[in-house]
């Protein structure tokens, strides 16, 4: 048996073992599919930088190997006729698409409780959520089943679950990675991101999936990312700490963990300055107008005619309504209705127009901070550690507020990385994030890597 086949069997066994614990992080998984890919790889003679690396792929990213359901009944069993550029590039580098990971339906949620196929359990406490919407990707990496997984971010959906599960989550700049083959939710916000066990693991994957793509006109005309992770210290770096990300009601463990990391930054030679991003409080309301508005248009394509679920009716309009009404889950229906409302005649300026203004100001805050000599921003990723399952599921606004520190980066299109910085007294992971100017991922990841080398993510924060 070749090393590739043995590695593939071991990866399949790890995923199967994780799923047997009730994690529910994978929607599609088949040991034979993994083995077949390894067999094909073993016949290749070209250079394979990822030779046999098993990766999880969020189930809103199109693959040939498995269905692409977006964790929705409306796309249950759907097979894409093409694969995403990010997936094609990973496979070209020798990666194996090990499984499709569970998620909030169409990426809409912060807990992976809004999956048509059941919620993802937190790998350390099954009574808690893994975060979302890329909760399956984060949980699978945290459980040790795969080293890396693709996720997607529209409003923090890689960093928030990464923080909850104690792994690394990278959201690249808008345009860094092709969106071709990523099922659209909010097109001005969506980006494929990476969950990794370490900064280096996530960086390797991001380097390989990034770069120009003629199939996506929103993908920047840039070479693939080159991020060598070669810094030993942070001398000469100026890190801004935005006051608005440390409100009075911030969890004690998260505040203390961030304080401890700020001390690490200083010890490693960085200059740390308090900065203000005054429009931060507008980020969540702005996001929850723009994202549903774009979703209401993007999800119009799911109508029971060209693919997916069909609920037969005597009249075409009834067919659309019944198929969509029964095929979409509760949160997706809510967001489509909110999105349609804010775009409808009489409400457009009051909601969508104002949200665009807010977005410009949020983006302007980051521009001003970076123009003032700040190289990177440091902040908590989430206001709390992983919350209990069911805690927010009937209260959409409370759920939305768990995105309070992550969605501004998506609105501004800048890159960010969340990394684990310790554990709360309950043993739950605490995450913090760095944010950088657009297309400064090399500095962002190099700095995160240095912090990671000087942080024990398992140490209790006191």
């Amino acid at each position, binding site marked *: 048996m070749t090393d590739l086949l043995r590695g593939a069997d071991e990866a399949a066994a790890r995923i199967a073992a994780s799923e047997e614990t009730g994690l529910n992080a994978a929607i599609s998984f088949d040991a034979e599919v993994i083995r077949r890919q390894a067999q094909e790889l073993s016949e290749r003679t070209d250079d394979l930088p990822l030779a046999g690396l098993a990766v999880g792929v969020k189930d809103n990213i199109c693959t040939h190997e498995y269905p692409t359901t977006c964790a929705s009944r409306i796309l249950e069993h759907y097979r894409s006729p*093409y694969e995403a550029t990010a997936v094609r590039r990973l496979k070209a580098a020798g990666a194996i698409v090990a499984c499709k990971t569970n998620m909030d339906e169409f990426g809409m949620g912060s807990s992976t409780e809004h999956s048509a196929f059941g919620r993802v359990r937190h790998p350390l406490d099954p009574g808690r959520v893994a975060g979302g919407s890329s909760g399956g990707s984060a949980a699978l990496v945290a459980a040790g089943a795969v080293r890396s997984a693709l996720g997607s971010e529209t409003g923090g959906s890689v960093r928030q679950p990464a923080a909850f599960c104690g792994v690394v989550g990278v959201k690249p700049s808008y345009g860094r990675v092709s969106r071709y083959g990523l099922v659209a939710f909010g097109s001005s916000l969506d980006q494929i991101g990476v969950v990794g066990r370490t900064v280096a693991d996530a960086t390797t994957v991001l380097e390989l999936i990034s770069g120009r793509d003629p199939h996506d*006109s929103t993908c920047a005309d840039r070479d693939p990312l080159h991020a060598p992770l070669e810094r030993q210290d942070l001398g000469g770096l100026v890190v801004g700490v935005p006051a608005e990300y440390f409100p009075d009601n911030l969890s004690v463990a998260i505040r203390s963990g961030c304080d401890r990391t700020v001390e690490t930054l200083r010890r490693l030679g960085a200059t740390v300055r308090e900065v203000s991003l005054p429009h931060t409080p507008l980020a969540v309301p702005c996001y929850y107008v723009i994202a549903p508005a774009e979703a209401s248009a993007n999800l119009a394509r799911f109508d029971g*005619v060209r693919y997916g679920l069909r609920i037969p009716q005597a009249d075409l309009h009834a067919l659309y309504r019944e198929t*969509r009404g029964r095929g979409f889950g509760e949160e997706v229906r809510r967001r489509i*209705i909110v999105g349609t*409302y804010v775009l409808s005649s009489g409400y457009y300026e009051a909601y969508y127009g104002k949200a665009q203004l807010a977005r410009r100001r949020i983006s302007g805050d980051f521009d001003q901070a970076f123009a003032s000599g700040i190289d990177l921003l440091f902040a908590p990723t989430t206001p709390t550690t992983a919350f209990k399952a069911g805690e927010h599921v009937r209260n959409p606004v409370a759920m939305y507020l768990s995105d309070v520190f992550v969605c501004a980066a998506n609105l501004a*299109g800048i890159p960010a990385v969340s990394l684990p910085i310790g554990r709360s007294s309950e043993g739950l992971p605490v995450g913090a994030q760095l944010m950088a100017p657009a297309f400064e991922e090399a500095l962002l990841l190099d700095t995160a890597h240095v912090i990671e080398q000087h942080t024990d993510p398992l140490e209790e924060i006191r």
Partner: protein
Amino acid sequence: MRVPREEVERIARLAALAVNESSLAELTTQIGEILEYVAQLEGIETDEPSGPVHLGPERAPLRPDTRDPTPLTLTPREMAPEFDEDFYVVPKVEGVGDEE
């Protein structure tokens, strides 16, 4: 913010979404709460023109004008819920063609 139930029904019709009668009351309450929350944006004072924020490339990159179809592993026939010859099969639109 109180949103009338009829308004939620109207918007759902615009969005081509059937809403279950039994879930309408809770949905109406939740939509009202979400709209009340995002209404804090109304407080933004400005003389600036509104308009979408543009994050992508300054202009769409051009590619050679050559025919280069993406190979599809499935045809529309295989993907569609109902397909006949070269057409997607759908029920008629109510009221159209009834008089003929």
